[in-house]
């Protein structure tokens, strides 16, 4: 095979992957962080591993299995938390471990060695297929349109749900649809960052953005930019240092977060002195 074509293909895939991952993670992550759903998202992520295991065992695309598990667990928790008859954090904790257990059992039962298992746990750009990239690209477009068209409705329902109920009968529909989209985003990004690390890909960029702005729309834009900076820098470092890409991305994002915090502290002090 021609080495340069292989490299070119790899770079294009890496750049598109980083771009789509940043867009989807920025949009979904801002919603998750603002609505304080980080723990729920962790539960969705790990529950979807059960779907990956069953996918392997049944010989279907593991991403489809993960999507089904992810969306069902997200809707289940959202439904239960509305009933308030169950300890939500305990339910998520159970779901979390149960999904992992199912995944491990079915992967163990699958005949032969599963070479891609590690890539689902820790993410790998090498195993990301064209179909994965296309799926993330389509997801980016869906999320952008969804948030642009329903921006005010989504913003106000997630800010103050009980007040929204005083004027709208669509609160539950929007909660379920948005949460399903979040679950799907998480699942599609598992290929990039892995089950163990994907949550940070969604939650660190909005936390970087919120250091500098408290306007929802701007938080989304800055999250996407911070995410893209983190993922592309992570790829580059990972490529040249020969270390795992998922871990490198998260490491890079945390460093950006620490630096941003530091800069913000200095700016605040500077303002105080000059007042």
């Amino acid at each position: 095979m021609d080495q340069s074509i292989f490299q070119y293909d790899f770079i294009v895939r890496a750049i598109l992957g980083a771009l789509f991952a940043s867009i989807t993670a920025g949009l979904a992550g801002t919603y998750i962080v603002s609505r304080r759903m980080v723990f729920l998202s962790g539960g969705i992520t790990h529950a979807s591993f059960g779907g990956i295991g069953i996918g392997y065992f049944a010989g279907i695309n593991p991403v489809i299995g993960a999507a089904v598990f992810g969306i069902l667990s997200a809707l289940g928790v959202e439904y239960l938390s509305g009933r308030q008859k169950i300890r939500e954090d305990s339910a998520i904790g159970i779901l979390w471990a149960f999904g992992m257990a199912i995944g491990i059992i079915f992967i163990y039962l699958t005949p032969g060695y599963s070479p891609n298992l590690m890539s689902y746990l820790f993410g790998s750009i090498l195993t990301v297929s064209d179909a994965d990239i296309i799926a993330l690209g389509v997801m980016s477009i869906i999320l952008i349109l969804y948030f642009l068209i329903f921006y005010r409705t989504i913003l106000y329902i997630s800010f103050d749900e009980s007040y929204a109920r005083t004027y709208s009968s669509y609160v539950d529909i929007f909660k379920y649809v948005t949460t399903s989209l979040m679950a799907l985003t998480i699942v599609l990004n598992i290929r990039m960052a892995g089950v163990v690390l994907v949550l940070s890909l969604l939650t660190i960029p909005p936390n970087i953005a919120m250091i500098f702005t408290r306007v929802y729309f701007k938080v989304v834009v800055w999250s996407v930019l911070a995410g893209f900076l983190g993922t592309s820098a992570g790829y580059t470092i990972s490529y040249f240092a020969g270390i795992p890409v998922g871990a490198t991305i998260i490491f890079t994002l945390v460093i950006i977060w620490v630096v941003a915090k530091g800069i913000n502290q200095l700016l605040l002090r500077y303002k105080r002195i000059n007042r």
Partner: protein
Amino acid sequence: MAGLFDMHSLSASYGGSLVLEEINFSVKENDFIGVIGPNGGGKTTLLKVILGLLKPVSGEIIFNSDLLNSNSIGYLPQISTGDINYPVTVTDVVLSGLMIRKGVMSGMSSDDKKKAEMVIEELGLKGMARLSLSELSGGQLQRVFLGRAIIGDPRLLLLDEPGNFVDSSFENDFYEKLRMLNGRMAILMVSHDVGTISSHIKSFACVNRKLHYHPSHEITNDDLLAYGCPIQLITHGEVPHTVLKIHT
């Protein structure tokens, strides 16, 4: 004065138990009614029925459709249910009061934003339009939520325990704002603090499963007893104390 709505022998239940029983009650333009009663007596349930969030089990509420429909009621909920660390600005929160007339797909026009600016200024929050909620004091927060309730020019304003998040420095100012708003809308204010509100409102409604209307802003312990509305009358002074009935 034209009536805004009438309740006819309305009963409502909450969580399986009857909370409001056979209520006859009406609110007219420019009313300023203090809704008082013991905890669990049905004050908030009454507001929920008016807002259409709870269907009565029997009886009915009839709106005077020329003046009032569910789109022209402003509502200030009990202590903010919104997350103050959420990334929204003061303007965004005030604008959300307009969602009641908008579809799920609409944005905010520049007229809407101008209107929000006016409301923010009217409530003494000038210069804070772009701040996030976490940067405000309790009294300022309450004014933001009041702004959300009034931006749609409602004919009826429902306030649920507004005293809860007032810092005392803003309390008089807040009631002054309400007096001004009362010129253009009827106000129904739930409160447990009878002493404080009596100097601002025009009449009382005592709710304890039944509703008794008291057409004056002065109310005595004997009135409350007669209405079956057991609450303490508290007067504010240097030392917390309760004023008891005069011995005879």
